[in-house]
């Protein structure tokens, strides 16, 4: 989906989301809950602000030597008997993983939740190659059964009701299960336990990768990440190059703020550190370990306008507080990564043309920047992105014309005064109970969903003059 075709699609998706009462309710409950949990968690954690600054400085320091850190990470993984693969694009990443499966005769692969694998649409590729991918994070499992996509970075199935989940899991379990979270979770545990024990290969992402030690770090609550890295014969981890950090001393700084930002927990239930395959003497852990390092558009932004977006930890905090995300949910964004940071990541991975419409799906209120654990200045980059979209001529002609005329009016005090005076007369037929509720022509698109305050009877300048006189 590129260029002009994208805009009506986004508007239509957003409109559909706004009209979906169930989605509205689910989004409201989920995002409000996450906001409260995060706020409580940081309220009792005075050192949080200092740690956020430190985490940000670590990310910046890492970017300034990214090539060295990636080289060291690869060396350490190989020293531990692991294999490292280099994927410049999503296609290459997919091809590497498919080849690993093909060469080993893999029929079924278990996956723990990974946005990187969503980014490259790995499941579709695996299915096409005759490998059955099984998502094992409960939320991801549910949406896989429903043939849908995640709607939230850390809570992928928040848009599903327990009734819908019961129907989905009942079908797999060949039994009628009650629409009860306990019952459904227990059923999924049983179904997925078999898969963990049978699978030939486990696929994960990485929350972090520690260059100094060759360690891949996975943060989960359910324990599926541990299953996937402990039980199958082969473990493949796919990570974006932005996930590398220098040392274990850096890791603990991030751990202290990641779960707090995401779910309000001090730490998630499981933080799993893995380095290469099973060591001598160990009874479990994989025989083979593969790390796939993926660029896919990221390196272009090291010296680009979206550099700061490379700091992102994928905690999801900016989604929960975003007034746009809270209204339309993740699917309406139409890409892997939703929410304010998702717009930037989409631009990074797919190019500016992919966010021609999305760049405007923000009120620029700044709530995202306030909650970001590494204080990414998302609003600034969104504004720059809008500018770039405009420069590339992606904005409609009418819009460009309107801004040009608006710019002229704003620069000329005389024209502005004249406009205010004229506005008072012109608006008369449209003022209803002190508001502009229905404007004609193209302006009607604004008043279709919200009112405008009318031009005031006296402008500020006029009042100022009077005040000075008295």
């Amino acid at each position, binding site marked *: 989906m590129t260029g002009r075709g994208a805009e009506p699609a986004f508007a239509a998706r957003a409109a559909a989301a706004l009209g979906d009462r169930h989605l509205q309710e689910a989004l409201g409950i989920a995002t409000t809950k996450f906001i409260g949990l995060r706020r409580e968690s940081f309220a009792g954690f005075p050192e949080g602000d200092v740690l956020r600054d430190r985490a940000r400085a670590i990310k910046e320091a890492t970017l300034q030597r990214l090539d060295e850190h990636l080289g060291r990470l690869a060396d350490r993984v190989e020293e531990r008997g692991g294999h490292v693969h280099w994927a410049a694009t999503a296609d290459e990443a997919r091809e590497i993983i498919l080849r690993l499966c093909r060469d080993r005769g893999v029929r079924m692969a278990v996956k723990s939740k990974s946005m990187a694998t969503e980014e490259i649409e790995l499941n579709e590729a695996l299915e096409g190659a005759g490998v059955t991918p099984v998502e094992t994070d409960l939320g991801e499992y549910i949406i896989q059964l429903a043939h849908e996509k995640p709607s939230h970075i850390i809570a992928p199935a928040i848009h599903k009701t327990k009734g819908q989940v019961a129907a989905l899991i009942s079908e797999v379990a060949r039994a009628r299960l009650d629409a009860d979270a306990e019952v459904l979770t227990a059923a999924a545990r049983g179904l997925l336990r078999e898969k963990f024990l049978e699978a030939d290969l486990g696929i994960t992402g990485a929350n972090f990768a520690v260059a100094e030690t060759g360690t891949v770090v996975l943060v989960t609550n359910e324990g599926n990440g541990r299953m996937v890295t402990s039980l199958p014969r082969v473990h493949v981890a796919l990570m974006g190059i932005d996930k590398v950090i220098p040392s274990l001393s850096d890791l603990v700084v991030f751990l202290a703020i990641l779960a707090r930002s995401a779910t309000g927990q001090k730490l998630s239930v499981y933080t799993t*550190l*893995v380095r290469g395959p099973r060591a001598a003497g*160990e009874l*479990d852990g994989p025989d083979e370990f593969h790390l796939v390092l993926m660029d896919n558009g990221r390196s272009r932004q090291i010296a680009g306008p979206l550099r700061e977006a490379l700091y992102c930890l994928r905690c999801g905090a900016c989604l929960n507080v975003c007034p746009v995300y809270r209204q339309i949910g993740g699917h309406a964004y139409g890409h892997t990564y939703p929410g304010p940071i998702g717009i930037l990541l989409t631009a990074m991975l797919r190019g500016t043309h992919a966010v021609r419409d999305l760049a405007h799906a923000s009120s620029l209120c700044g709530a995202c920047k306030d909650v970001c654990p590494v204080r990414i200045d998302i609003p600034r980059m969104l504004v720059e992105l809008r500018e770039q979209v405009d420069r590339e001529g992606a904005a409609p002609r009418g819009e460009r014309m309107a801004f040009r005329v608006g710019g002229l009016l704003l620069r000329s005090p005389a024209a502005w005064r004249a406009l205010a005076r004229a506005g008072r007369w012109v608006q008369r037929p449209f003022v209803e109970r002190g508001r502009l509720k229905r404007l004609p022509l193209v302006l009607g698109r604004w008043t279709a969903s919200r009112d405008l305050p009318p031009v005031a009877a006296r402008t500020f300048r006029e009042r100022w003059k009077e005040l000075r006189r008295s």
Partner: protein
Amino acid sequence: MTPRDAFLARIGAEVRRARPAGPATPAPRPARPAEAAEAIRRQMAERWPAAVRRFEEEFGRVAGVFHRVRRREEVAGVILGIARAQGTRDLVAWSADAIGVALEAELAAAGLGLTVAGPDDAEGRRRHREAAARAGVGVTGADIVLAETGTLVLVSGAGRPRATSLLPPTHVAVFDPSQVVESLEQVGVLLEALHAGASGPASITFVTGPSRTADIELTLTRGVHGPREVHAVLVEEP
């Protein structure tokens, strides 16, 4: 040029072209990790009672169950109680060395079956996996016990399989005061020390309470893939 060289050269070129954006400082690392770790252990030798109180509070907050015994000999009794409450006869455990207690004789006397992690040949691996998949309780040690978050840190290795704390529905971790620390920052130092040189384990797991999910309508549910119950047993006088 190998794929690696080409990949890193492209990134290197961007790195050199980029302008820095704000403060850039990695976290300070201990110059001599082993000594820094030793200093923490010495501090904690004095401060552990307060840290244990904090651990107990935080561990309870994440739905962990805390037990305290005076001597090693009392650990088997606690585990027996947990197994009975679970109605299970099958247990798996790390090696006696790795836990610091031999449990086999006492549990056998009570009519329970305990499979202890043994040698890592193909037969040993198969036996371990089957036993762990069947067991109702898995018993491990804890290499670091982190008070401020109520976290048990488990290091993998010979006699310390990963599945012991993962597959059984109940996990019991045994520790003594020498393993207790106060902060994540201290854990960072201990991890650095553990990886000094080219050493270090293939896997380390931080466990903060029982496995949980809130993926169905945000209803908190325990025991989705990992254990539904986690117990920590402090042995005060090792």
